C-alpha cells in the first residue's frame, strides 16, 4: 500500500515538470503571449505529430535514417572491436597503430563531412562512412582498455588447465572486456545518431535529418517541431534497446557510472 503510494508520488513528480511546461506553453500560445507562428501550441504540434504518424509520412525517413545508422554503426563497431582486441592483446600491433589512431581520433567528425561529400557524393555511402568513422574510435579505445584490464592470472590459469587460444579468447578475453566494449558502444551510439542527422541535413537526400531541416526551410513550423519529437523518440527507443541488450550481455557487471 505504502509502496504503491510512493511510486505514485515518484511518477507524479516526474511528470509534473513536462506537464507544467507544456500547459504553460499551450496557455501562452493561445493567449498570444508568445507568437504562435514561431512557437505553436503543444496541442497543435501533437496534432501534426499524430498526422505524420497516422498518414505514415514518418515511415520512409525513419527507415532511411535507421538503415544508415545500423549499417554505419555496425561497420564501425565491428572494425573497432577487431582492431581493438588485437591492439589490446599484442604490444607490437598496438605500437604500429597507436600513433595513427591518436592522429585521426581528435578530428571533430562532422568536419570530415565536406571532404567525404567531395569524394563520395551526397548519398548513402558518404552517410554510412561518417557514421562508421564516428562510431569507430570510442569503441576502439574502450576495447583496448578492456582487453588490457583482463587479469593475466586468469589467462595463465586457463593456459595451465590446458585451454587452447580460441577457448581463452572466447571464455576469458571477450567476456571480461565486454563491459568496456559496451561502454564504448554506448558513447558511439549517441555520436552515430548525431552524425547521421547532421549528414542527412547536409546532403538533403531523405531521412529524418533532411525532413526536419526541409520543414524549417519551407517554414512548416509545426512539422519542424513534430519531426523533433520523432527524432527524440528514436533516441529514446535506441537508448532503451541498448540498455536492455547491455543488461543481458554484460549481466555480471555492476551498472557503470556515466
Amino acid at each position, binding site marked *: 500500500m505504502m509502496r504503491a503510494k510512493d511510486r505514485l508520488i515518484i511518477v507524479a513528480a516526474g511528470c509534473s515538470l513536462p506537464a507544467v511546461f507544456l500547459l504553460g506553453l499551450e496557455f501562452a500560445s493561445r493567449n498570444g503571449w508568445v507568437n504562435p507562428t514561431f*512557437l505553436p501550441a503543444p496541442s497543435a504540434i501533437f496534432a501534426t505529430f499524430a498526422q505524420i504518424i497516422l498518414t505514415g509520412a514518418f515511415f520512409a525517413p525513419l527507415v532511411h535514417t535507421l538503415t544508415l545508422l545500423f549499417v554505419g554503426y555496425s561497420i564501425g563497431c565491428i572494425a573497432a572491436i577487431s582492431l581493438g582486441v588485437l591492439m589490446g592483446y599484442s*604490444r607490437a600491433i598496438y*605500437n604500429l597503430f*597507436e*600513433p595513427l589512431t591518436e592522429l585521426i581520433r581528435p578530428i571533430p567528425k562532422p568536419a570530415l563531412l565536406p571532404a567525404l561529400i567531395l569524394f563520395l557524393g551526397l548519398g548513402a555511402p558518404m552517410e554510412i562512412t561518417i557514421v562508421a568513422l564516428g562510431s569507430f574510435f570510442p569503441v576502439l579505445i574502450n576495447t583496448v582498455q578492456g582487453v588490457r584490464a583482463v587479469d593475466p592470472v586468469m589467462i595463465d590459469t586457463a593456459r595451465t588447465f590446458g585451454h587452447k587460444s580460441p577457448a581463452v579468447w572466447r571464455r576469458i578475453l571477450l567476456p571480461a572486456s565486454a563491459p568496456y566494449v559496451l561502454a564504448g558502444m554506448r558513447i558511439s551510439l*549517441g555520436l552515430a545518431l548525431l552524425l547521421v542527422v547532421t549528414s542527412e541535413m547536409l546532403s538533403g537526400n531523405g531521412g529524418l535529418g533532411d525532413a*526536419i531541416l526541409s520543414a524549417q526551410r519551407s517554414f512548416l*513550423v509545426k512539422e519542424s517541431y513534430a519531426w523533433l519529437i520523432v527524432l*527524440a523518440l528514436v533516441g529514446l527507443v535506441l537508448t532503451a534497446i541498448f540498455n536492455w541488450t547491455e543488461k543481458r550481455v554484460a549481466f555480471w557487471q555492476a551498472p557503470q557510472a556515466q
Partner: protein
Amino acid sequence: MTQLVADNETQGLSGPKRSVSIGVRVRNSRASGVLLVVLILCAWELSARTGFVQSTNWPPFSTVMATLVVDVTDGELLPLILSTLWRLARGYGIGFAIGIPLGFAIALLRPVRLVVRPTIELLRPIPIPAIIPPLIFLLGLGDSLKLSSIAFATLFPVVLNTIAGVMAVEPIYDQVAKTFGVSRWTALRRVVFPAALPFVLAGLRTALGLAVVVTVVAEMIVGQDGVGYYLVSMQFAMRAADMYAAIVLLTLIAYLLNRAFILAEGRIIRWTRLREASGDAS
C-alpha cells in the same frame, strides 16, 4: 607539481617505466607506428603528385599544410578561429554554469531530484543537431541559436557526472563534518564539492569534446562565420586545399583544448587531494 603531471602523462601512455633490455625497448617503441604515419602521408603526397589519383579533390599533403600556414598567417583564418573559439567558450560556459548547480541540486535535494531528473533522462537522447531547425524559428539564425545548441549539448554530461560525483561522496565525510559541528554550507563547499570534483571534471571534459563537435555542426548548418562555415564554403567553392587546411585546423583546436583540459584537470584534482590529505577542510 609540474613533474608529477608529466609523470602521469607518461604512465597514461605506456605504464610505469621499467628497466628493460634493448631488444624489448625496440619492440616497445612506437617507431613502427610513427613510420606507418609517415608512409601514409608519403603515399598521399606521391599519389597526388604523380597523378596516380587524378582529382582536384586530392591536393598533396604538402600543399594542404602550406595552404594552412598561408591562410593563418595572412589573416584570412584568424578572425574565424577567434569567432569559433569565442562561440564555443560562451556556449560551453553557459552549459556548465547551469549544469553544475543543477547537478548539485538534483543530487542533494530529493524533491528536485524527483521533479527534474526524469525530464533530463527524457531530453538526453535527443540528437543535438535536431534541435537546431526548430530553434531557428525561436532564435533566428544568429549566435543565440548556436550558443543554445552548444549549451544544450554541454549540459547533459555535466549534470549527469555532477550527480554521480555528489552521490558517490562517502557518507562518512559528511558525518565527520557534522560531528565537528561544521555548517551545512561549509560542509558542502569544503567536503562535498572537492570530493565530487573529479567526477565533475570528467563530465566537463566529455562535454568539451561534444561542445566542439556541436559548434562545428552549428556553424556548418546555419553558419555566417567561424571555421565550420569556412569549411563548408571551401567545399562549395571546390577549394580542396583550403578545405583540408580547415579540417586540420579544427583537429588542432580540438586536440589542444583537450590537452589543456587534461593538464588543468591534473592540477586541480591534485590540489584537491593535497587539501584533503593535509586535513585543510575546516
